[in-house]
C-alpha cells in the first residue's frame, strides 16, 4: 500500500518536473518577446523529432543528438523571431501585435505538426533512448529509470536557468527588459543580445521536456506531442506566469495531484478525470486568486 503510494508520488514528481520545464519554456519566451505564444508546443514536437532524426537516422550519440536538436530548434525560433515576429511588431500596434503573434504561432503549430507527419509518418516511433522500460528496484518499490532521469535532468536545467537569470549579465538584462523595457533600453541593454539567449533557454527547456515525453516509458514519439505540451498550461497559470519558482511549484503540485488522481480516484468520478483535474484546479484558482498561487504582490493580470 505504502509502496504504491511512493511509486505514484515519484511518477507524479517526474510528471510535475516535465510540466515545469514546458511552462518554463512558455514563461521565458513570454519574457523575451513580450507576447504570449504557443511556439513551445512546436518546440516540444520538433525537438523530439529532430533528436530522432539525429540519433536513429544519422546514428549520432544520444546526448550529442540532444544538443544538436536544441540548437536546431533555437535556430528555428530565432528565424521565426526575426522574419515574422519583428515584422508584425513593426506594422501593428501593441494590442493587435499580441493577438497577431499568438495567431501566427497557432499557424506555425499546424505547420510543425504537418512537417512531422509528412517527414516521419503518423505512427508511434521508438526514440531509442538509453533508458527504455528498465526500472530500478528499491525494496518493493519499482521506479522507472526514465523517471529518475527526468528528475535529474530537470533539476540540472532549472539550476542552470536560475544561475543564468540571477547571476549573469545576460540574465540581469533579461529581467530588466521584462520588468521595464524602456528603462532597460536607456541603460544600454540591447534586446538583440538578450533575445538569442532567451530563445536558447526556451528551446532547451521545451526540447528536453519533449524528448523525455517521447521516451519509450513516456509513450513513444508521436505527432500529438504538442497537444501533450498544452497540458502544462494549467501549471503555468497556477505558478502565476512570471516567476520561475512559481512554475516549478505549480508543475509539481499538478503533477503529483494528477498521478494521485490516476491511482486513487474512485470510478464514480468518471473517465478521464485525471486528465481534466489540472484544468479544474486551474479554474478554481482563477476564481479565487486570479494572479496565481505564487504571484508577487504588485502583480497585475496582464
Amino acid at each position, binding site marked *: 500500500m505504502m509502496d504504491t503510494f511512493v511509486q505514484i508520488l515519484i511518477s507524479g514528481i517526474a510528471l510535475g518536473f516535465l510540466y515545469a520545464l514546458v511552462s518554463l519554456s512558455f514563461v521565458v519566451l513570454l519574457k523575451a518577446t513580450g507576447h504570449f505564444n504557443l511556439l513551445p508546443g512546436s518546440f516540444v514536437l520538433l525537438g523530439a523529432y529532430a533528436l530522432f532524426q539525429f540519433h536513429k537516422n544519422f546514428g549520432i550519440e544520444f546526448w550529442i543528438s540532444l544538443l544538436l536538436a536544441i540548437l536546431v530548434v533555437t535556430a528555428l525560433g530565432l528565424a521565426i523571431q526575426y522574419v515574422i515576429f519583428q515584422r508584425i511588431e513593426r506594422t501593428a500596434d501593441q494590442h493587435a501585435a499580441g493577438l497577431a503573434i499568438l495567431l501566427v504561432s497557432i499557424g506555425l503549430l499546424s505547420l510543425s505538426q504537418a512537417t512531422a507527419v509528412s517527414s516521419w509518418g503518423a505512427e508511434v516511433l521508438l526514440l531509442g533512448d538509453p533508458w527504455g522500460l528498465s526500472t530500478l528496484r528499491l525494496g518493493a518499490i519499482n521506479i522507472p529509470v526514465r523517471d529518475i532521469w527526468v528528475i535529474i535532468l530537470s533539476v540540472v536545467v532549472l539550476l542552470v536557468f536560475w544561475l543564468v537569470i540571477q547571476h549573469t549579465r545576460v540574465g540581469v538584462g533579461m529581467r530588466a527588459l521584462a520588468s521595464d523595457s524602456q528603462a532597460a533600453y536607456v541603460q544600454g541593454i540591447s534586446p538583440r543580445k538578450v533575445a538569442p539567449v532567451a530563445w536558447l533557454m526556451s528551446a532547451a527547456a521545451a526540447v528536453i521536456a519533449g524528448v523525455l515525453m517521447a521516451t519509450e516509458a513516456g509513450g513513444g514519439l508521436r505527432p500529438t506531442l504538442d497537444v501533450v505540451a498544452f497540458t502544462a*498550461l494549467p501549471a503555468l497559470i497556477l505558478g502565476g506566469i512570471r516567476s520561475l519558482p512559481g512554475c516549478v511549484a505549480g508543475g509539481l503540485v499538478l503533477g503529483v495531484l494528477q498521478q494521485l488522481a490516476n491511482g486513487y480516484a474512485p470510478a464514480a468520478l468518471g473517465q478521464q478525470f485525471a486528465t481534466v483535474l489540472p484544468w479544474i484546479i486551474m479554474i478554481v484558482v482563477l476564481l479565487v486568486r486570479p494572479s496565481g498561487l505564487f504571484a508577487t504582490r504588485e502583480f497585475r493580470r496582464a
Partner: protein
Amino acid sequence: MATVASTGTLRTKGAFDERIRREVRVFQSPVTRYGAVLLTVLAVVLPLSTADSFLLSLGITVGFFSIAAIGLNVLNGYAGQINMGQPFFLAIGAYTAVGFGSIMNLPLPVWLLAVVVIGAVSGMLVAPLALRLKGVYQIVLSLGLIFIGQYIFVNWTDLTGGVSGRKAPLNLSVGTLDFAALQLGGMGYSYQQGLFMLVWLFVALCMFLVHLLMKSPGGRHIVALRDAELAARVAGINPARSMFGAYAISSAMGALGGAFYVAQLRFVSPEQFNLGMGLTFIIIVTVGGLATAWGPVVGSLVICAIPVLASRYAEYIPFLKANSSTPDGTWGIPVGQFPVVVYGVLLVLILMFEPRGLTHLIKVFALWATRPLHRRSAVAGTTEGNA
C-alpha cells in the same frame, strides 16, 4: 457635403448628417446589397437545382462552420476578446439538439429555441470568469473549457453515448413542412437539400443580425471598449453589460452551429469537439477577416473547401502522396496533412501581409476589377452636382 462654417462661430448642426447617414446604412454599396439578396436566393435555389451530394454536404459544412464563426467573430473580432473555446459551445448546442430534437423528438422550432437559449446561458455563465481575465489567462481558460467540456460529455453517457458517440437523427419538421423530406410543388427533395436550405437561411439570418447589431448602440459600445476601454468607460459605457451581450451572442451562435453539425452528420461523439476544432475556428475568423461581416463566411468557405478539394484532386497537386502510416522513403505531404499546411501558411501570410483578411483582399480586387464603372459613375456624379 456641408462643412463647418468659417464665419467665426462654430456651427456644427447638420454638418455630420451625411456622414452619419452613410455610416448607419445597412449596405454600404450596391454590390453588398444585391450580393446579399442574390446569396439568399441562392440558398433556396441552389439545393433545389442540384442533387450532387458532394456539393451539398460541402455546402452544409461551410454553413454550420459559418454560423459558429460569425458568433466567434463577435467576440474575437468586434469585442477584441480571445476565445479559443468555441468547440465547447458547439458541443453544448449539439447535445441540446440531441436531447430535445432526437431523444425527445420535438419539432424543429422547439429544439432550435432550446439550443439558442441554452447556448446563450452557457456563454453568460462563462463570461464573468473570462471577463475578469486578460491576455494569457483568458486564452488558457478558453483552452481549459474544451478539455472540461470533453470530460463532462464523455461521462454523461445517457445523453452522449460516451467515447464511442451515438447516432442522432434530428427531427427537422415545422408543422407540416419537414426539411428532412421536403415536398415542394409536388416534387420531393432529399434530406441534404432540405438541410442545406435551412442552414444557409440561418447563416443569412445570423450575418444580418450581427451586422445590424454592430450598427446599434450596443455594438458600438463593444467596439469602443475594444479600441479604448478607458475612454469608453469615461463616456458612460458599462463594460460588463456590453461584454456579457457579446459572450451570449457568440455562444448562442456557436451552439446553433453545433446543432446543425449534428443534423449534418446524424452522429455525434464528444471527441469531435477538440482542440483542433478550436484552432480551426480561430483560423477561419482570422483568415476571413476579423470584425468584418463577410469574413467568417469567406473564411469557412476557404477552410472547409480545401480539405475536400485536396482529397478530390490529389493527383494534380505536386508533393502530395497518399495517406499511409509508414514512411515509404519518399518525402511528400500526405493528403490528410495538406489542408493543415495550407491553414498554417495562410494564417502566417495573412497576419504578416494583410491582417484585415481575405475579405479585404476580395474588396480591393473587386474595386480594381470594376474600376471603369466607378470612373463613369464618378463623372456622372460631378456633372449632376454642377447642374
